[in-house]
Protein backbone atom coordinates (compact mmCIF):
# COMPACT_ATOMS: atom_id res chain seq x y z
CA UNK A 1 0.00 0.00 0.00
CA UNK A 2 1.54 3.38 -0.96
CA UNK A 3 1.97 5.98 1.76
CA UNK A 4 -1.23 7.78 2.62
CA UNK A 5 -3.30 4.97 1.11
CA UNK A 6 -5.67 3.71 3.77
CA UNK A 7 -9.05 2.01 3.73
CA UNK A 8 -10.74 5.20 4.92
CA UNK A 9 -8.76 7.49 2.67
CA UNK A 10 -7.46 5.65 -0.43
CA UNK A 11 -4.67 7.31 -2.43
CA UNK A 12 -5.81 9.40 -5.38
CA UNK A 13 -3.89 7.07 -7.78
CA UNK A 14 -6.11 4.26 -6.64
CA UNK A 15 -9.24 6.41 -7.19
CA UNK A 16 -8.04 7.30 -10.72
CA UNK A 17 -7.68 3.57 -11.44
CA UNK A 18 -11.24 2.95 -10.26
CA UNK A 19 -12.55 5.78 -12.45
CA UNK A 20 -10.64 4.32 -15.42
CA UNK A 21 -12.91 1.28 -15.18
CA UNK A 22 -16.10 3.31 -15.60
CA UNK A 23 -17.46 3.27 -19.18
CA UNK A 24 -18.85 6.36 -20.89
CA UNK A 25 -22.65 5.83 -20.80
CA UNK A 26 -23.10 6.59 -24.51
CA UNK A 27 -19.86 5.16 -25.92
CA UNK A 28 -19.17 2.30 -23.48
CA UNK A 29 -16.03 1.20 -25.33
CA UNK A 30 -14.08 4.09 -23.78
CA UNK A 31 -13.82 5.02 -20.11
CA UNK A 32 -14.52 8.32 -18.40
CA UNK A 33 -10.77 8.87 -18.00
CA UNK A 34 -10.14 7.99 -21.70
CA UNK A 35 -12.62 10.73 -22.59
CA UNK A 36 -10.62 13.25 -20.54
CA UNK A 37 -13.60 14.57 -18.60
CA UNK A 38 -12.24 13.73 -15.13
CA UNK A 39 -10.05 16.76 -14.48
CA UNK A 40 -8.94 16.19 -10.90
CA UNK A 41 -9.19 13.86 -7.92
CA UNK A 42 -8.19 15.28 -4.54
CA UNK A 43 -8.84 14.92 -0.84
CA UNK A 44 -10.08 18.03 0.95
CA UNK A 45 -9.85 16.99 4.60
CA UNK A 46 -12.02 13.87 4.87
CA UNK A 47 -13.94 14.60 1.63
CA UNK A 48 -12.96 13.19 -1.74
CA UNK A 49 -13.51 15.79 -4.48
CA UNK A 50 -13.80 14.59 -8.07
CA UNK A 51 -13.76 17.40 -10.64
CA UNK A 52 -15.58 16.69 -13.90
CA UNK A 53 -15.99 18.81 -17.03
CA UNK A 54 -18.87 18.31 -19.49
CA UNK A 55 -18.14 17.49 -23.14
CA UNK A 56 -21.10 19.56 -24.44
CA UNK A 57 -23.21 22.02 -22.41
CA UNK A 58 -26.37 20.03 -22.98
CA UNK A 59 -24.96 16.51 -23.06
CA UNK A 60 -27.65 14.35 -21.40
CA UNK A 61 -24.99 11.88 -20.24
CA UNK A 62 -23.51 14.43 -17.82
CA UNK A 63 -25.99 13.63 -15.03
CA UNK A 64 -25.61 9.89 -15.54
CA UNK A 65 -21.82 10.21 -15.42
CA UNK A 66 -21.99 11.94 -12.02
CA UNK A 67 -24.31 9.22 -10.73
CA UNK A 68 -22.00 6.48 -12.05
CA UNK A 69 -18.97 8.07 -10.36
CA UNK A 70 -20.84 8.45 -7.10
CA UNK A 71 -22.13 4.87 -7.11
CA UNK A 72 -18.73 3.38 -8.00
CA UNK A 73 -16.88 5.30 -5.31
CA UNK A 74 -19.51 4.59 -2.65
CA UNK A 75 -19.20 0.88 -3.45
CA UNK A 76 -15.46 1.22 -2.80
CA UNK A 77 -16.24 2.60 0.63
CA UNK A 78 -15.83 6.33 0.04
CA UNK A 79 -18.16 7.95 2.56
CA UNK A 80 -17.72 11.67 2.00
CA UNK A 81 -17.73 12.56 -1.66
CA UNK A 82 -18.29 15.70 -3.70
CA UNK A 83 -18.46 16.03 -7.49
CA UNK A 84 -17.51 19.50 -8.72
CA UNK A 85 -18.25 20.81 -12.21
CA UNK A 86 -15.45 22.71 -13.92
CA UNK A 87 -16.04 24.56 -17.21
CA UNK A 88 -12.62 26.05 -17.83
CA UNK A 89 -10.58 25.09 -19.74
CA UNK A 90 -13.44 23.83 -21.92
CA UNK A 91 -13.30 20.16 -22.90
CA UNK A 92 -11.61 19.41 -26.19
CA UNK A 93 -11.52 16.23 -28.25
CA UNK A 94 -7.71 16.62 -28.23
CA UNK A 95 -7.80 15.17 -24.70
CA UNK A 96 -8.60 11.72 -26.09
CA UNK A 97 -5.35 9.76 -25.96
CA UNK A 98 -4.00 7.46 -28.72
CA UNK A 99 -5.34 4.39 -26.91
CA UNK A 100 -8.84 5.88 -26.70
CA UNK A 101 -8.74 6.79 -30.40
CA UNK A 102 -7.85 3.19 -31.30
CA UNK A 103 -10.71 1.87 -29.13
CA UNK A 104 -13.14 4.19 -30.94
CA UNK A 105 -11.93 3.08 -34.36
CA UNK A 106 -12.23 -0.61 -33.41
CA UNK A 107 -15.79 0.12 -32.21
CA UNK A 108 -16.73 1.68 -35.59
CA UNK A 109 -16.47 5.38 -34.67
CA UNK A 110 -13.91 7.40 -36.64
CA UNK A 111 -11.74 9.10 -33.98
CA UNK A 112 -11.13 12.87 -34.05
CA UNK A 113 -8.22 13.91 -36.23
CA UNK A 114 -5.47 14.68 -33.65
CA UNK A 115 -4.62 18.31 -33.00
CA UNK A 116 -7.47 19.58 -35.16
CA UNK A 117 -9.45 21.12 -32.31
CA UNK A 118 -7.28 24.19 -32.00
CA UNK A 119 -8.98 27.53 -31.48
CA UNK A 120 -12.67 28.16 -30.92
CA UNK A 121 -14.50 30.50 -33.27
CA UNK A 122 -16.82 30.47 -36.22
CA UNK A 123 -14.21 30.23 -38.98
CA UNK A 124 -12.65 27.11 -37.56
CA UNK A 125 -15.48 24.61 -37.84
CA UNK A 126 -16.01 25.46 -41.47
CA UNK A 127 -12.38 25.13 -42.51
CA UNK A 128 -12.20 21.88 -40.57
CA UNK A 129 -15.15 20.33 -42.32
CA UNK A 130 -13.89 21.34 -45.73
CA UNK A 131 -10.27 20.32 -45.36
CA UNK A 132 -10.78 17.23 -43.27
CA UNK A 133 -9.81 13.72 -44.34
CA UNK A 134 -11.60 11.15 -42.19
CA UNK A 135 -10.79 7.50 -42.76
CA UNK A 136 -13.67 5.01 -42.79
CA UNK A 137 -13.43 3.02 -39.53
CA UNK A 138 -14.66 -0.12 -41.35
CA UNK A 139 -12.63 -0.37 -44.57
CA UNK A 140 -9.97 2.32 -44.00
CA UNK A 141 -10.80 4.23 -47.21
CA UNK A 142 -10.38 7.98 -47.07
CA UNK A 143 -12.98 8.47 -49.82
CA UNK A 144 -15.56 9.60 -47.29
CA UNK A 145 -18.09 12.42 -47.09
CA UNK A 146 -19.96 14.23 -44.38
CA UNK A 147 -23.73 13.74 -44.23
CA UNK A 148 -24.37 16.11 -41.31
CA UNK A 149 -22.41 18.15 -38.78
CA UNK A 150 -24.52 16.42 -36.13
CA UNK A 151 -24.95 12.76 -35.24
CA UNK A 152 -26.39 10.27 -32.79
CA UNK A 153 -24.91 12.05 -29.74
CA UNK A 154 -23.75 15.67 -29.26
CA UNK A 155 -20.09 14.63 -29.66
CA UNK A 156 -20.50 12.92 -33.05
CA UNK A 157 -21.17 13.82 -36.70
CA UNK A 158 -22.69 11.60 -39.41
CA UNK A 159 -20.37 10.54 -42.26
CA UNK A 160 -20.50 7.99 -45.11
CA UNK A 161 -17.85 5.93 -46.88
CA UNK A 162 -17.97 6.18 -50.67
CA UNK A 163 -16.12 2.88 -51.10
CA UNK A 164 -17.85 0.45 -48.74
CA UNK A 165 -20.95 2.70 -48.69
CA UNK A 166 -21.41 2.29 -44.94
CA UNK A 167 -22.55 5.28 -42.88
CA UNK A 168 -20.46 5.86 -39.77
CA UNK A 169 -20.10 8.19 -36.78
CA UNK A 170 -17.20 10.64 -36.66
CA UNK A 171 -16.15 11.90 -33.23
CA UNK A 172 -16.45 15.69 -33.61
CA UNK A 173 -13.46 17.95 -32.99
CA UNK A 174 -14.18 20.77 -30.59
Amino acid sequence: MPAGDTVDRPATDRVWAWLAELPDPEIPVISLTDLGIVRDVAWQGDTLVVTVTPTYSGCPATGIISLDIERALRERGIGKLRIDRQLSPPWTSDWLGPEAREKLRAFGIAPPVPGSAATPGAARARSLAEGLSVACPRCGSDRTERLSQFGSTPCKAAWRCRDCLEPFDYFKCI
Partner: protein
Amino acid sequence: MPALPETTIPADAVLFETLLRVGDSALILGHRVSEWCGHAPTLEEDIALANVALDLIGQATLWLGLAAEIEGAGRDADALAFRRDAGGFRNLLLAEQPNRDFAVTVMRQFLFDAWHAEMLAGLAVSTDPRVAEIAAKAQKEVAYHLERSETLVIGLGDGTPESHARMQAALTRLWPFTGEPFRGDATDAAAAEAGIAPDPAALEPGWSARVEAVLAEATLTLPDTARFRSGGRSGVHGEALGLLLAEMQFLQRAYPDARW
Protein backbone atom coordinates in the same frame (compact mmCIF):
# COMPACT_ATOMS: atom_id res chain seq x y z
CA MET B 1 -19.55 66.58 -18.83
CA PRO B 2 -21.92 63.74 -19.85
CA ALA B 3 -24.35 62.35 -17.29
CA LEU B 4 -23.60 58.87 -15.97
CA PRO B 5 -26.98 57.17 -15.53
CA GLU B 6 -25.28 53.72 -15.48
CA THR B 7 -23.95 54.31 -11.99
CA THR B 8 -27.50 54.19 -10.70
CA ILE B 9 -27.84 50.50 -11.68
CA PRO B 10 -26.18 48.24 -9.06
CA ALA B 11 -23.42 46.00 -10.48
CA ASP B 12 -25.15 42.74 -9.57
CA ALA B 13 -28.38 43.88 -11.20
CA VAL B 14 -26.48 44.62 -14.42
CA LEU B 15 -24.84 41.18 -14.38
CA PHE B 16 -28.14 39.42 -13.57
CA GLU B 17 -29.96 41.22 -16.37
CA THR B 18 -27.13 40.55 -18.85
CA LEU B 19 -27.19 36.82 -18.00
CA LEU B 20 -30.99 36.67 -18.44
CA ARG B 21 -30.72 38.31 -21.86
CA VAL B 22 -28.22 35.83 -23.25
CA GLY B 23 -29.65 32.84 -21.36
CA ASP B 24 -33.27 33.50 -22.34
CA SER B 25 -32.41 33.82 -26.03
CA ALA B 26 -30.67 30.44 -25.90
CA LEU B 27 -33.54 28.86 -23.96
CA ILE B 28 -36.36 30.18 -26.13
CA LEU B 29 -34.68 29.39 -29.44
CA GLY B 30 -33.66 25.98 -28.03
CA HIS B 31 -37.29 25.24 -27.21
CA ARG B 32 -38.46 26.45 -30.61
CA VAL B 33 -35.96 24.22 -32.40
CA SER B 34 -36.90 21.26 -30.20
CA GLU B 35 -40.46 21.52 -31.55
CA TRP B 36 -39.09 20.00 -34.77
CA CYS B 37 -38.09 16.76 -33.07
CA GLY B 38 -39.73 13.96 -35.05
CA HIS B 39 -41.04 16.33 -37.76
CA ALA B 40 -37.99 17.39 -39.79
CA PRO B 41 -37.86 16.78 -43.56
CA THR B 42 -35.01 14.24 -43.33
CA LEU B 43 -33.59 12.06 -40.56
CA GLU B 44 -30.22 13.88 -40.60
CA GLU B 45 -31.98 17.22 -40.21
CA ASP B 46 -34.14 15.89 -37.40
CA ILE B 47 -31.02 14.77 -35.54
CA ALA B 48 -29.17 18.02 -36.28
CA LEU B 49 -32.09 20.14 -35.04
CA ALA B 50 -32.38 18.10 -31.84
CA ASN B 51 -28.63 18.48 -31.25
CA VAL B 52 -28.75 22.26 -31.78
CA ALA B 53 -31.70 22.49 -29.39
CA LEU B 54 -29.82 20.44 -26.82
CA ASP B 55 -26.73 22.64 -27.05
CA LEU B 56 -28.82 25.82 -26.67
CA ILE B 57 -30.82 24.49 -23.72
CA GLY B 58 -27.57 23.27 -22.11
CA GLN B 59 -26.06 26.74 -22.54
CA ALA B 60 -29.24 28.31 -21.11
CA THR B 61 -28.89 26.07 -18.04
CA LEU B 62 -25.38 27.46 -17.46
CA TRP B 63 -26.37 31.12 -18.03
CA LEU B 64 -29.54 30.94 -15.94
CA GLY B 65 -27.77 28.93 -13.23
CA LEU B 66 -25.23 31.72 -12.86
CA ALA B 67 -28.01 34.35 -13.00
CA ALA B 68 -29.82 32.62 -10.14
CA GLU B 69 -26.59 32.47 -8.13
CA ILE B 70 -25.98 36.20 -8.65
CA GLU B 71 -29.57 37.01 -7.75
CA GLY B 72 -29.22 35.06 -4.50
CA ALA B 73 -32.98 34.81 -3.97
CA GLY B 74 -33.14 31.03 -3.67
CA ARG B 75 -34.12 30.47 -7.29
CA ASP B 76 -32.25 28.11 -9.62
CA ALA B 77 -32.07 27.76 -13.42
CA ASP B 78 -35.29 25.70 -13.48
CA ALA B 79 -37.18 28.28 -11.43
CA LEU B 80 -36.08 31.02 -13.83
CA ALA B 81 -37.04 28.94 -16.88
CA PHE B 82 -40.35 27.58 -15.67
CA ARG B 83 -41.75 30.12 -13.18
CA ARG B 84 -41.45 33.43 -14.97
CA ASP B 85 -44.23 34.89 -17.08
CA ALA B 86 -43.69 36.32 -20.56
CA GLY B 87 -43.01 39.81 -19.20
CA GLY B 88 -40.06 38.44 -17.22
CA PHE B 89 -38.31 36.99 -20.28
CA ARG B 90 -35.46 38.95 -21.86
CA ASN B 91 -34.91 36.99 -25.09
CA LEU B 92 -34.56 38.58 -28.51
CA LEU B 93 -37.85 38.65 -30.44
CA LEU B 94 -36.08 36.79 -33.26
CA ALA B 95 -35.65 33.76 -30.99
CA GLU B 96 -39.38 33.41 -30.21
CA GLN B 97 -40.62 33.63 -33.82
CA PRO B 98 -42.67 30.53 -34.71
CA ASN B 99 -41.09 27.77 -36.82
CA ARG B 100 -43.63 27.99 -39.67
CA ASP B 101 -41.85 26.12 -42.51
CA PHE B 102 -38.32 24.73 -42.71
CA ALA B 103 -37.15 27.86 -44.57
CA VAL B 104 -38.17 30.15 -41.69
CA THR B 105 -36.55 27.78 -39.19
CA VAL B 106 -33.26 27.71 -41.12
CA MET B 107 -33.20 31.46 -41.82
CA ARG B 108 -34.01 32.31 -38.18
CA GLN B 109 -31.18 30.01 -37.08
CA PHE B 110 -28.68 31.60 -39.44
CA LEU B 111 -29.58 35.19 -38.50
CA PHE B 112 -29.38 34.20 -34.83
CA ASP B 113 -26.18 32.11 -35.08
CA ALA B 114 -24.35 34.93 -36.86
CA TRP B 115 -25.22 37.23 -33.91
CA HIS B 116 -24.61 34.50 -31.31
CA ALA B 117 -21.07 33.81 -32.55
CA GLU B 118 -20.18 37.53 -32.34
CA MET B 119 -21.83 37.90 -28.93
CA LEU B 120 -20.05 34.87 -27.45
CA ALA B 121 -16.69 36.04 -28.80
CA GLY B 122 -17.27 39.27 -26.85
CA LEU B 123 -18.47 37.45 -23.71
CA ALA B 124 -15.47 35.08 -23.86
CA VAL B 125 -13.22 38.03 -22.97
CA SER B 126 -15.55 39.28 -20.22
CA THR B 127 -13.93 40.75 -17.12
CA ASP B 128 -16.11 38.32 -15.13
CA PRO B 129 -14.37 34.91 -15.35
CA ARG B 130 -17.66 33.04 -14.73
CA VAL B 131 -19.17 34.70 -17.81
CA ALA B 132 -16.01 34.13 -19.86
CA GLU B 133 -15.85 30.39 -19.15
CA ILE B 134 -19.48 29.73 -20.12
CA ALA B 135 -18.99 31.75 -23.32
CA ALA B 136 -15.79 29.87 -24.22
CA LYS B 137 -17.65 26.58 -23.85
CA ALA B 138 -20.67 27.74 -25.86
CA GLN B 139 -18.51 29.27 -28.59
CA LYS B 140 -17.23 25.87 -29.71
CA GLU B 141 -20.77 24.53 -30.02
CA VAL B 142 -22.08 27.58 -31.84
CA ALA B 143 -19.29 27.32 -34.43
CA TYR B 144 -21.00 24.10 -35.55
CA HIS B 145 -24.47 25.68 -35.47
CA LEU B 146 -23.31 28.52 -37.70
CA GLU B 147 -21.50 26.21 -40.09
CA ARG B 148 -24.68 24.19 -40.53
CA SER B 149 -27.08 27.12 -40.87
CA GLU B 150 -24.82 28.90 -43.39
CA THR B 151 -24.55 25.76 -45.51
CA LEU B 152 -28.33 25.30 -45.47
CA VAL B 153 -29.09 28.94 -46.30
CA ILE B 154 -26.76 28.76 -49.31
CA GLY B 155 -28.04 25.34 -50.42
CA LEU B 156 -31.71 26.25 -50.15
CA GLY B 157 -31.39 29.87 -51.34
CA ASP B 158 -29.42 28.84 -54.41
CA GLY B 159 -31.58 25.71 -54.82
CA THR B 160 -34.84 25.02 -56.62
CA PRO B 161 -37.29 27.81 -57.53
CA GLU B 162 -39.49 26.58 -54.66
CA SER B 163 -36.72 26.56 -52.03
CA HIS B 164 -35.40 29.92 -53.25
CA ALA B 165 -38.85 31.53 -53.02
CA ARG B 166 -39.40 30.13 -49.53
CA MET B 167 -36.00 31.31 -48.31
CA GLN B 168 -36.59 34.79 -49.72
CA ALA B 169 -40.01 34.92 -48.04
CA ALA B 170 -38.45 33.76 -44.75
CA LEU B 171 -35.78 36.45 -44.97
CA THR B 172 -38.38 39.14 -45.66
CA ARG B 173 -40.50 37.92 -42.73
CA LEU B 174 -37.63 37.85 -40.23
CA TRP B 175 -35.69 40.91 -41.38
CA PRO B 176 -37.57 43.43 -39.16
CA PHE B 177 -36.35 41.50 -36.08
CA THR B 178 -32.64 41.76 -36.94
CA GLY B 179 -32.03 45.27 -35.61
CA GLU B 180 -32.89 44.49 -31.99
CA PRO B 181 -29.70 42.54 -31.12
CA PHE B 182 -27.58 45.62 -31.82
CA ARG B 183 -29.67 48.26 -30.06
CA GLY B 184 -28.53 48.62 -26.46
CA ASP B 185 -30.15 50.28 -23.46
CA ALA B 186 -28.77 51.63 -20.15
CA THR B 187 -28.14 48.10 -18.82
CA ASP B 188 -26.14 47.15 -21.92
CA ALA B 189 -24.15 50.37 -21.62
CA ALA B 190 -23.37 49.62 -17.97
CA ALA B 191 -22.37 46.03 -18.81
CA ALA B 192 -20.08 47.22 -21.61
CA GLU B 193 -18.60 49.90 -19.36
CA ALA B 194 -17.80 47.27 -16.72
CA GLY B 195 -16.36 44.94 -19.38
CA ILE B 196 -18.94 42.24 -18.55
CA ALA B 197 -20.38 42.09 -22.07
CA PRO B 198 -19.65 43.65 -25.46
CA ASP B 199 -21.43 46.82 -26.57
CA PRO B 200 -24.33 45.51 -28.71
CA ALA B 201 -23.71 48.06 -31.47
CA ALA B 202 -20.09 46.92 -31.81
CA LEU B 203 -21.29 43.46 -32.94
CA GLU B 204 -23.19 44.79 -35.95
CA PRO B 205 -20.36 45.24 -38.50
CA GLY B 206 -19.20 41.60 -38.07
CA TRP B 207 -22.78 40.32 -38.27
CA SER B 208 -23.63 42.40 -41.34
CA ALA B 209 -20.50 41.36 -43.21
CA ARG B 210 -21.19 37.68 -42.68
CA VAL B 211 -24.93 37.89 -43.36
CA GLU B 212 -24.46 39.90 -46.55
CA ALA B 213 -21.77 37.51 -47.85
CA VAL B 214 -23.82 34.38 -47.15
CA LEU B 215 -27.06 35.84 -48.54
CA ALA B 216 -25.24 36.92 -51.70
CA GLU B 217 -23.87 33.40 -52.16
CA ALA B 218 -27.40 32.10 -51.54
CA THR B 219 -28.66 34.40 -54.37
CA LEU B 220 -31.07 36.03 -51.91
CA THR B 221 -31.92 39.73 -51.96
CA LEU B 222 -31.45 41.86 -48.84
CA PRO B 223 -34.86 43.33 -47.92
CA ASP B 224 -35.02 47.12 -47.91
CA THR B 225 -37.52 47.15 -45.04
CA ALA B 226 -36.70 48.70 -41.65
CA ARG B 227 -35.21 46.50 -38.95
CA PHE B 228 -37.48 48.13 -36.39
CA ARG B 229 -38.99 45.38 -34.19
CA SER B 230 -37.74 45.39 -30.61
CA GLY B 231 -38.88 45.00 -27.02
CA GLY B 232 -37.56 41.56 -26.05
CA ARG B 233 -34.85 42.79 -23.72
CA SER B 234 -37.35 44.88 -21.77
CA GLY B 235 -39.90 42.06 -21.59
CA VAL B 236 -42.26 43.31 -24.29
CA HIS B 237 -42.95 40.23 -26.40
CA GLY B 238 -45.31 39.09 -29.12
CA GLU B 239 -48.13 36.59 -28.75
CA ALA B 240 -45.76 33.83 -29.90
CA LEU B 241 -43.83 33.79 -26.61
CA GLY B 242 -46.94 33.32 -24.47
CA LEU B 243 -48.00 30.29 -26.50
CA LEU B 244 -44.49 28.85 -26.31
CA LEU B 245 -44.35 29.29 -22.52
CA ALA B 246 -47.79 27.70 -22.11
CA GLU B 247 -46.30 24.52 -23.50
CA MET B 248 -42.74 24.77 -22.12
CA GLN B 249 -43.84 25.58 -18.58
CA PHE B 250 -46.96 23.42 -18.39
CA LEU B 251 -45.59 20.62 -16.25
CA GLN B 252 -43.89 22.77 -13.62
CA ARG B 253 -46.92 25.05 -13.47
CA ALA B 254 -49.40 22.19 -13.09
CA TYR B 255 -47.22 20.10 -10.78
CA PRO B 256 -44.77 22.47 -9.06
CA ASP B 257 -41.49 20.83 -8.05
CA ALA B 258 -42.43 17.58 -9.83
CA ARG B 259 -39.44 15.24 -10.08
CA TRP B 260 -38.89 11.94 -11.85
